[in-house]
């Protein structure tokens, strides 16, 4: 619980010191988001370097190991240091507010999670300065290649992921305990905000699959440093075993990165459509269904390793099954727009942009799930396009929707709408120009993870278009940062600038350390809507 202000020693009240010692979930949430934002900039610069090298055939900008380090650390950064922790940041900030609690269940553990995340990130980025450079086996780091990788970059990569795993595990337990035990009066499971539902599934999945990652990484480390041969076939190991262990973690990880974003979208769209969400229960239960099935699909990343048809078939069917709850969500969001009073504030633009491009990412996933088609497109730029449609077009656009939506709550100031809309259009158009042509590149035969190509003609054309798109997207991100910088002097937000429905908007912006002076009894999934209606009725009398 937040400490009594009078009991805090003088030195801990300083402008900087207070952030280092804080155990307030809101400050920790902001630390998570800001740190992840910094890592996003780092990973984004790596992406721009990659696109520059690929802008033309046989470029000599960053080649070979330099390039291989870049795409390895870009992927690892964006997944482990950006999307997963920024969602933990949203969860930290919002879950206690949304359920009417005073803080997370374990505030100190919460602070530890954040600091572990920061240290894990520092280890990963500093590994560029290791002997022989950073890890260069891809974010998947398949052995035996990663076992043979010279220098200490790969070992530091493993160390970093171990630290981040501990951070996420502690965070996941904290979320689950908080959601189960600290809901305010009247906040039953069917009145829980959909974002909180999604964080519940996010945390449950992390808890289930992170141990598999830890085990796989430990075996990999032993193979590299202790002379064991779990994954080295020359001494009896099995090269494919690691892939099973890794993807048992790796595929649920994809849903860990998208489910809370579904939650954000399910909060944003109704507020800007001035409607209740269409099919609350269907959306909540489809999150749980996606979480469950995500544990059964891992080997669809391994259709080319030569599994028997029975296994290929099983993983194809289970992967396609996930398309059903996902489709349900998209239809529900669309139906929420139906007969609404749609307000196109920047948060809503990002949310609608999300629905549009996430649909494309979902549809290309069906081709990948059909394993004979996967045999053509696996490990090509088609997969790169697909995963960016899901993780940038999906996760990042959704996160930007969330940032624009909750920014006034976090800082008490509104972001500039005009600048926000400009940044949306740059990012949305730049994103599609960057990644849509990559579908074609993959179908034309361009594998992923190559630093150079010698095909002139179409392959070079599409690559150039893609690189230009990435710069446009980069400009959009800069506009967003400019907007953030300017918001220090933005208009005051008030408690509830969007006339939203959930409890976090009941308190001040930003909320006081103890969150609420009083929490209203929760009568539905939209407590503030109910309050406004009652107020209106009373005034009418």
């Amino acid at each position, binding site marked *: 619980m937040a400490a009594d202000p009078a009991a805090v020693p003088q030195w801990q009240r300083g402008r900087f010191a207070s952030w280092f010692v804080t155990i307030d979930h809101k400050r920790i949430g902001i630390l998570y988001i800001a740190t992840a934002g910094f890592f996003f900039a780092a990973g984004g610069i790596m992406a721009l370097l990659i696109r520059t090298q690929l802008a033309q055939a046989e470029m000599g900008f960053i080649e070979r190991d330099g390039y291989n380090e870049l795409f390895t650390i870009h992927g690892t950064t964006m997944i482990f240091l950006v999307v997963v922790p920024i969602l933990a940041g949203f969860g930290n900030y919002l879950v206690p507010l949304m359920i009417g609690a005073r803080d997370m269940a374990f505030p100190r553990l919460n602070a530890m999670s954040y600091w572990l995340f920061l240290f894990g990130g520092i280890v990963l980025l500093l590994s560029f300065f290791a002997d022989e450079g950073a890890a260069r086996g891809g974010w998947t780091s398949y052995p035996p290649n990663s076992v043979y990788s010279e220098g200490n970059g790969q070992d530091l990569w493993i160390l970093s992921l171990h630290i981040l795993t501990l951070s996420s595990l502690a965070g996941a337990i904290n979320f689950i305990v908080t959601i189960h035990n600290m809901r305010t009066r009247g906040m039953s499971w069917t009145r829980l905000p959909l974002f909180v539902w999604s964080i519940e599934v996010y945390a449950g999945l992390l808890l289930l699959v992170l141990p598999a990652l830890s085990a796989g990484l430990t075996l990999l480390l032993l193979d590299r440093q202790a002379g064991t041969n779990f994954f080295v076939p020359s001494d009896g190991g099995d090269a494919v075993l690691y892939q099973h262990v890794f993807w048992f973690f790796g595929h649920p990880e994809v849903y860990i990165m998208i489910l809370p974003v579904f939650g954000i979208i399910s909060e944003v769209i109704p507020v800007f459509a001035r409607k209740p969400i269409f099919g609350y229960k269907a959306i909540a239960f489809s999150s749980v269904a996606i979480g469950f099935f995500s544990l059964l699909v891992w080997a669809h990343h391994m259709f080319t390793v030569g599994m028997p048809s029975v296994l290929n078939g099983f993983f194809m069917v289970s992967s396609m099954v996930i398309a059903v709850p996902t489709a349900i969500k998209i239809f529900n969001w*669309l139906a929420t727009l139906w007969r609404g*009073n749609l307000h196109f504030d920047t948060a809503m633009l990002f949310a609608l942009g999300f629905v549009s491009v996430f649909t494309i990412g979902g549809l290309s996933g069906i081709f990948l799930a059909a394993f004979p088609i996967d045999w053509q497109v696996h490990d090509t730029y088609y997969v790169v396009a697909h995963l960016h449609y899901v993780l940038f077009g999906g996760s990042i656009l959704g996160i930007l929707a969330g940032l624009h939506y909750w920014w006034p709550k976090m800082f008490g100031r509104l972001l500039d709408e005009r600048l926000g809309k400009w940044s949306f259009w740059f990012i949305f158009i730049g994103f599609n120009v960057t990644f849509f042509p990559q579908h074609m590149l993959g179908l034309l035969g361009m594998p992923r993870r190559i630093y150079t190509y010698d095909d002139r003609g179409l392959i070079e054309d599409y690559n150039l278009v893609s690189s230009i798109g990435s710069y446009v997207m980069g400009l959009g991100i800069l506009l967003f940062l400019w907007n953030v910088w300017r918001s220090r002097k933005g208009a005051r937000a008030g408690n509830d600038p969007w006339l939203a429905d959930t409890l976090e908007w009941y308190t001040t912006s930003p909320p006081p350390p103890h969150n609420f002076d009083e929490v209203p009894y929760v009568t539905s999934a939209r407590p503030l809507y109910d309050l406004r209606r009652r107020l209106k009725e009373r005034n009418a009398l």
Partner: protein
Amino acid sequence: MPAAVRRSLVPAVLLALLVAAPALAGNGGVAPVEPASPNAERINDSYYWVSIFTGAIFVLVQATLIIFIVRYRRRRRARTEDGAQVHGNTNIELAWTIAPVLILVAIGTFVFYKLPGIQNVPDASAQGGRVDIEVKGYRYYWNYTYPNGVIAVDRLRAPVGQNVRLELTAPPFDVIHSWWIPALGGKFDAIPGQTNETWFNAEAPGVYRGQCAEFCGVQHAEMKATVEAMPREEFESWLEDEARAQEAGSSDLGEQTYAGACAKCHGLGGEGDIGPQLRGNSLLDDPDAIEEVVRNGRGEMPPIGKDWEDRQMDALTEYLKEELLGGG
């Protein structure tokens, strides 16, 4: 231009791009490359079948999104004005749960119907017989062994109109690679300590290009493969001639091996690149010393030829001595 109209422009432009691309060249990348083998053709059939459904869903979702955005935009309504307070509709929700299931059943059924023709390697006793070739992935080249013992590197020759079965593997000391010639079918991994198989039946003479699809290390991007399909008689006479030449030590196997296994790190002229300069290196005079390095690796150089047959090793040492020792 109101935001809603601008929004609708983007999908329109994307759609135009999708339609315009085929006009540029071949299919322009909207489907896998032009197939030249029955297995690749059946994969393309599956791809088009799935495209029908995904295309329809794409249009349905994006059109609905745009129509709703335009139709239900706020116009002059205040934020306090509620939209329709609809919480759900069981029938509609059931419908859009069942519809995707039916679509997925249609997709799955078609894919499993096509699967045997894609995956199953035709029988050796089938009409026209079959050529079995061993394909081994090494860092960063492909080594082929034909049924009569002929060895080739990176460029695979194959008969037109005859089934070719590939036995894919990698030596136990190497890493995972992936064999992929897009026009001749899907990719399969060449995994150390494990053997996978695939096949093709080239429909026309020509050179089909592909490259390793599983990241395998620093020169993964240079690990390319070509299949040269030639008329059957031509292929058979080449194979016999090549067998004789390799017996006699007069083939170009040394040059092929150098270009495939050595040049990607040491340069085509031995001038040095990732690996040290070879041209003029006194080591080249000593076949045993070369063999020692090639079989066991040295420093960052992997043991690229640990399990070569003597014939390939001799061809390489001879080539190195003749071509790279003298010059400077």
